[in-house]
């Protein structure tokens, strides 16, 4: 076999490979800046959100000693932990109060059990006034060397002293770090605080060898358990300690359990009481409302797409503007239009009132009421189905459409689910029409004529020949509309009132009002998983390369 050589004498195969590699490299170099940009500005934030939905370092960071000693506590005992844990809590609390992190931890644990926030705030104030100053006074009276900051610093630099008094060394180090960071003082110039003397006392009474001999036999023990109980009785409540213990690992699935109406109990996930369940209902409501919006969009979009695809090009282009104009108009403009139109004193209701006052309105009123009654019956059926589903899930918040609350004269069209569905159908309709149109453009109308010439009725020709070919367009449009609508925030917020809001509104509420970011992140993660599943389906059916914008 002869080796084919390129002009420069290399084997042709190697030369081609090299050229290909260079081409690949050049393509990647062109893509790299944008890829890095997207990774930094978009993908990392999303990853951060996913991380935050399980992250729970705050407990172990704020109360490291307590968490370590709490390991030995049996949460089944029905008793609050013993002195050891309270001693650790005392050290942690003093430090946390100085770093001002105890309130943050309090509000974090308050999401799991109401009342913990005030418990921590109260204890933060009380922990500085504990009776442990008796230790300080007694030790300093026993030997004045213990009142000398420089002496302390020297001891704590000495390895034999550190080995003899490990706990004191630990608390002294924590104290020194805190002094440097929060007070910007030099530890060697400050007398250690009461809690350092507390640990010294505890170690000496247990038989450890202090650097200068101390006789502390006459100094009574101050029970820190009682001190904490004096500040707040709740510290003796084993349930508080259970919450601390359950949330002490660095990662937790607690936020996810919360977002499906469960909570983390002693024996794993437990269902929340019925009156606290909101999220599953909200997820189902978001799904059902997105489904209704999607259905409305198919119903309204299909005839329009058919008309546009089968009209002569000039007319179709003209009518296309009527579809594209809403598509290009600001979302806020369209939402404000609906807010204005649907109001109790808005244009639609005013028109209805005017219509009722005219002679043909009076004449046609029975017809109108009949139509409205049919709609109402239809809505009732949906409501009934919804409530059955809801009943299975154990939710309490039913779907209802209060069409005719204000009588037939003025309809309640806003601040309820009706408002959200009408406004969002209008906003998302172009996203249904455009993919449907591009699919229908490719279906030759002659197939219909062929079917009819073979004896099919109009309906059969449409249903058996045309419709199946338009299904890919319906699929693409449906997924697109559904993806867009389950994540909507602005429109439900403005026209949905309390009953017509989506899961996104709850996420926004947790970020800006209740500040429970972990729960917001967990809800967001669930929503993201749903959307990604739909995106994957969309990619399978349509292909992301085939996404078209504006016709």
């Amino acid at each position: 076999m002869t080796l084919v050589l390129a002009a420069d004498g290399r084997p042709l195969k190697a030369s081609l490979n090299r050229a290909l590699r260079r081409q690949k490299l050049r393509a990647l170099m062109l893509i790299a800046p944008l890829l890095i940009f997207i990774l930094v500005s978009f993908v990392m934030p999303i990853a951060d959100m996913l991380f935050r939905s399980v992250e729970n370092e705050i407990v172990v960071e704020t109360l490291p000693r307590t968490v370590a000693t709490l390991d030995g506590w049996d949460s089944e005992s029905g008793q609050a932990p013993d002195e050891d844990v309270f001693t650790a809590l005392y050290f942690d609390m003093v430090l946390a109060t100085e770093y001002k992190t105890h309130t943050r931890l309090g509000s974090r644990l308050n999401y799991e059990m109401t009342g913990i926030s005030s418990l921590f705030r109260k204890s933060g104030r009380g922990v500085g006034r504990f009776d442990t100053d008796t230790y300080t006074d007694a030790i300093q009276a026993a030997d004045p060397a213990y009142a000398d900051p420089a002496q302390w610093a020297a001891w704590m630099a000495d390895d034999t002293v550190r080995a003899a008094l490990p706990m004191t060394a630990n608390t002294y180090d924590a104290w020194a770090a805190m002094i440097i960071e929060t007070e910007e003082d030099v530890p060697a110039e400050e007398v250690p605080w009461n809690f350092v003397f507390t640990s010294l006392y505890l170690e000496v009474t247990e038989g450890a060898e202090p650097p200068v001999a101390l006789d502390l036999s006459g100094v009574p023990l101050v029970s820190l358990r009682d001190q904490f109980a004096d500040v707040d009785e709740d510290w003796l409540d084993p349930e508080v300690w259970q919450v601390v213990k359950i949330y002490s690992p660095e990662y937790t699935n607690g936020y996810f359990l919360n977002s499906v109406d469960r909570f983390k109990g002693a024996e794993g996930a437990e269902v929340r009481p019925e009156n606290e369940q909101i999220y599953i209902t909200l997820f189902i409501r978001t799904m059902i409302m997105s489904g209704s919006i999607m259905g409305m969009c198919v119903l309204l979009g299909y005839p329009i797409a058919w008309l546009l695809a089968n009209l002569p090009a000039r007319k179709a282009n003209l009518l296309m503007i009527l579809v594209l104009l809403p598509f290009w108009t600001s979302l806020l403009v369209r939402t404000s239009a609906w807010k204005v139109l649907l109001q109790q004193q808005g244009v639609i209701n005013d028109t209805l009132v005017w219509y009722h006052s005219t002679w043909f309105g009076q004449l046609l009123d029975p017809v109108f009421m009949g139509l409205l009654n049919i709609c109402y019956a239809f809505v009732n059926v949906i409501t009934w189905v919804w409530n059955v589903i809801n009943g299975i899930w154990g939710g309490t918040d039913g779907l209802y459409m209060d069409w005719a609350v204000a009588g037939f004269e003025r309809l309640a069209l806003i601040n309820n689910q009706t408002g959200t569905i009408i406004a969002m159908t209008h906003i998302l309709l172009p996203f249904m029409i455009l993919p449907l149109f591009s699919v229908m453009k490719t279906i030759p109308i002659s197939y219909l004529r062929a079917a009819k010439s073979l004896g099919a009725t109009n309906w059969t020709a449409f249903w058996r020949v045309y419709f199946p070919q338009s299904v890919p367009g319906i699929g693409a449009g449906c997924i697109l509309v559904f993806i867009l609508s389950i994540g909507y925030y602005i429109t439900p917020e403005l026209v949905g009132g309390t009953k017509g809001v989506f899961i996104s509104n709850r996420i926004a509420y947790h970020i800006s009002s209740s500040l429970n970011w972990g729960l917001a992140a967990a809800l967001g993660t669930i929503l993201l998983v749903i959307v990604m599943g739909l995106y994957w389906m969309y990619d399978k059916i349509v292909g992301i390369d085939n996404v078209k914008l504006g016709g």
Partner: protein
Amino acid sequence: MSALPAYATTGQRIWYYSFRVICGLIFFFLIAPIVVIIPLSFNAENFFTFTPEMLSLDPAGFSTKHYQDFFTSSDWQLALRNSLKIAPVATFLSVSLGTLAAIGLSQSHVPFRRAIMAILISPMIVPLIISATGMYFFYSNPYIPTPFGRIDLPFTLTGTYWGVVLAHAALGIPFVIITVTATLVGFDQSLTRAAANMGANPVTTFFRVQMPLILPGVVSGGLFAFITSFDEVVVVLFVGSAGQKTLPWQMFTGLREQISPTILAVATILIAVSVVLLIVVEMLRRRSERLRGLSPA
């Protein structure tokens, strides 16, 4: 739908006309809410409905006072200025980076093409509320993740101009990628080879040969990116602070708290802007199709 043939039965006739009426009603549903805003914005009263004077076309019923309010109110003017400061810069970022990447993606041998495409399109697919949540967390405390732990960066992006610009640029990129790659599908790669053959370097080839041909796609991608930023409210609500209050943000708070008729005037102005944008994009699309030798429409 072709015209009704002469031999159509009565049933077909009825269906033909009722179908047109149904389509007319749907078009009405699509367009009426937008159109109705325009006369309402000239209301002389602070109502959101037509007054009897307006219905009788009495000039006393109309006024431009809501427009005056928009142009004199410092809140609205600040919001307008902010929008005009943020959107062009975000657009510039997404168009320049997006065009380069789209050219890279359209080459014949790109490893991991599908995965890269999926990542680049994702800002359009991920619900805005999720993007906003993630950006709010990450921008307030940016860090570099390393295998040895995270390195916190010493600055914050939330509440800053550049934070909002960065976020908006990311949201606009999918639109640029989609429109420019669509234009590049019809681009004849032998043109660049011909240019190179005649001695042009890659930069000259790009600006003198490739760019003029794909310009319509780049411009319409840019318009999409611009409107995305100009119209965006969720992310700016989370990432921005009062100093970055944009026009949609001002409208959103106006609609949520106390709805004032000035919003209708702003809406009318924005409708005019979108009409202009629509016309420009349509013209560009047709020009691009002509350039690529495809039949118009």
